[in-house]
């Protein structure tokens, strides 16, 4: 994550920056679970739809690598490759753990679930 990216979007107010990082952490957590659940049901398109949203949110907090994994998830689904989708979801998880720690550290709470 990169708070300066978020500041370009919502302005410099630090309380808002923290509020949005916390909201992102919470939303992304839920969307991650949704992607996995949809994939387990064999509904690749549902995973891709969630990844599409998460991609934009991730970019807005400067989590570029996470956004790139979302792009990979979308293109695996477009290619109709569920095995590849599962692979990308695993890679996404690893990156997500990294981002989550960074957000936890920024917010100084680490209780984001």
């Amino acid at each position: 994550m990169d708070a300066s990216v978020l500041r370009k979007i919502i302005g410099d107010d630090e309380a808002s920056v923290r509020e949005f990082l916390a909201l992102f952490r919470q939303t992304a957590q839920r969307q991650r679970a949704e992607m996995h659940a949809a994939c387990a049901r064999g509904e690749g398109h549902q995973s891709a739809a969630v990844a599409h949203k998460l991609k934009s949110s991730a970019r807005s907090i400067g989590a570029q690598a996470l956004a790139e994994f979302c792009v990979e998830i979308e293109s695996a689904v477009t290619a109709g490759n569920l095995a590849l989708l599962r692979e990308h979801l695993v890679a996404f998880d690893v990156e997500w753990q990294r981002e989550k720690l960074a957000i936890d550290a920024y917010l100084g709470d680490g209780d984001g679930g």
Partner: protein
Amino acid sequence: MRVLVIDDDPFARSLLARQLSELAIQEVELVDSGEAALSRLARGMPAFDALIVDLNMPGMDGVQFLRHLARQRFRGGLVLVSGEDADILRSVAKLASARRLRVAGTLHKPIALESLGQALGAVPTFAESTVMGDMRRTYDEQDLRKAIATGQLVNFYQPQVRMIDGAVAGVEALVRWQHPDDGLVFPSDFIPLVEQSGLSDELAGAVLAGALRAARQWRGAGLELRVSVNVAMDNLFALDLPEKVVNAAAEAGVPAECVVLEITESQVTRDLDRLLDVATRLRLKRVGLAIDDFGTGYSSLAQLRDVPFDELKLDRSFVHGASSNPQLQAILRATLDMARQLGLRTVAEGVEDREDWDNLRDMACDFAQGYLIARPMPAEAILNWSSDWRAKGHQRLVKPQ
């Protein structure tokens, strides 16, 4: 300014809400789907000045939503938002403009605060003109016949200037319906009815007569202008059209070469021989023939091949904003090049800002028409406008040679 945000993603909605508050826009409503937005809009007041629409939504997607919006004749500004690439945003914006929606900006997610501010800055406050489909008056044939007979149809005139020196060269007559109860009604709201009712000839006749009267008055005051009048291709099948036009011009004391008929094609041409007969005789009598909205609909290369036009009007959709759009640039350059080789006069419509003007001038387009030069105005206003333009207006645009 009142803004409606339509985005299915809660995080994106919160970001936009925060951005709008940062931009000091207080009246904001948020909905999570196209369906919800349409039902909110159908409730009417208070009306929105702008909608911010995410194009990727489950259920009704952005393109479907815009189709419904066009049907409701939403008149506010639209800011289109997507995480997809720029090409898709551009296509959707094009689609929206073709449906007569007003696109104030296209923004790629995530949206920089500054770009959002710019896009919303391009939205004039349209709220009062937000007209919902069911609140719109519809007219029937009888209303229309009465309007023609009682002179409720009036011409507005939009100036055309020569790009090389800014000289005022002509005007396009644009008909409006001065309705006793509803105020000024625009052609898009009654021209389809004119065509269905077979009143095209009457309307074209009335518009031409009005334009010739105005031209006569301007000439009396020393201003010699070409007047362009819109004519449907259907009118061109009347074998006596050339005589009618020439007689009307003679009666008004205006030379036939100062009249241009702008032809729009709304269907595939059926009777080419007859068309060619009428068009050629018009040209022999020195009446100008312009192919209108070139490049759109049926206004195509085939028309250019078959009809002896002497003027080509570039549609606004190819002109405005072309300087920052490589695809439009290529089309414009090729079209102007072709027109030159065919010996056609070129008139660019939709010249709305300095960039449009410079771009067209650099490509050696002959004439320009659009809001940058002047909006359509009543006949009485033309003389004043013209002396204003000569005194100072055109110095802004025309570089000293």
